[in-house]
């Protein structure tokens, strides 16, 4: 199946980003295709390389970046949501690209399922 992933919640406060990460990994392991991961609303905060969680915790941004580079998945960070929250391409980590909301529409058209992870 062709999946689109949409994340509308930031890191750490809720489990949404972790669940999305686990889902994406599991879907890939089952042989499904992930067309794109779209970071939207507070979800754009998952993309910043400035996050520094405590050493004994998972590093949500690094987990995502590794997943993007290892599997060649496209990660798009909504430009309008990012600008509102102080996120631009000087702070986004490897694997994350800034893009427009139209890329979410494209995903809805192309993917068999767009799965949203929210609080």
């Amino acid at each position, binding site marked *: 199946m062709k999946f689109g992933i*949409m994340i509308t919640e930031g890191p750490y406060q809720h489990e949404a980003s972790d669940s999305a990460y686990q889902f994406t990994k599991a879907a890939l392991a089952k042989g499904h295709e992930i067309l794109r991961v779209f970071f939207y609303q507070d979800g754009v905060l998952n993309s910043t390389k400035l996050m520094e969680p405590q050493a004994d915790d998972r590093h949500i941004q690094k987990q995502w970046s590794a997943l993007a580079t290892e599997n060649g998945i*496209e990660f798009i960070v909504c430009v309008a*949501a990012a600008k509102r929250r102080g996120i631009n391409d000087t702070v986004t980590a490897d694997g994350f690209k800034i893009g427009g909301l139209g890329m*979410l529409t494209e995903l*809805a*058209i*192309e993917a068999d399922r767009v799965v949203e992870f929210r609080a």
Partner: protein
Amino acid sequence: MNEEMEENEEMAKLMIVFRTAPYGSIYAFEGLENVLIMAAYDQDISVLFVDDGVYAIKKGMDTTATGIKNFSPTFRAMEAYDIEKVFIDRTSMEERGLKLEDLVVEPEVVEAEAVEKMMEEQKNFFMF
């Protein structure tokens, strides 16, 4: 991905659902943004207002004291964008004492069963 899309000639059925009240959160505003962006892609778009989402299209909102822009009148742009499938859930509307003349647009009033059927028919939908 763009090349693949050009081969896909059939229109996708996509729905935007408004279910939260405007101004207390960004969701309704983002929903409107999505509706207007989606309209440019020439797909089979439906818009549904349900639960507190019906307040998003209420006339006469005054957001001055909140400092948040009143975007409710912008829903009128849906017509210019050729979005014709606009629905409102009857129960949600009636429970909140709203009538069609209280709204900035003229949605088709639908029953819960019809809403359920419509949702089943969609390829993808987004909730706001």
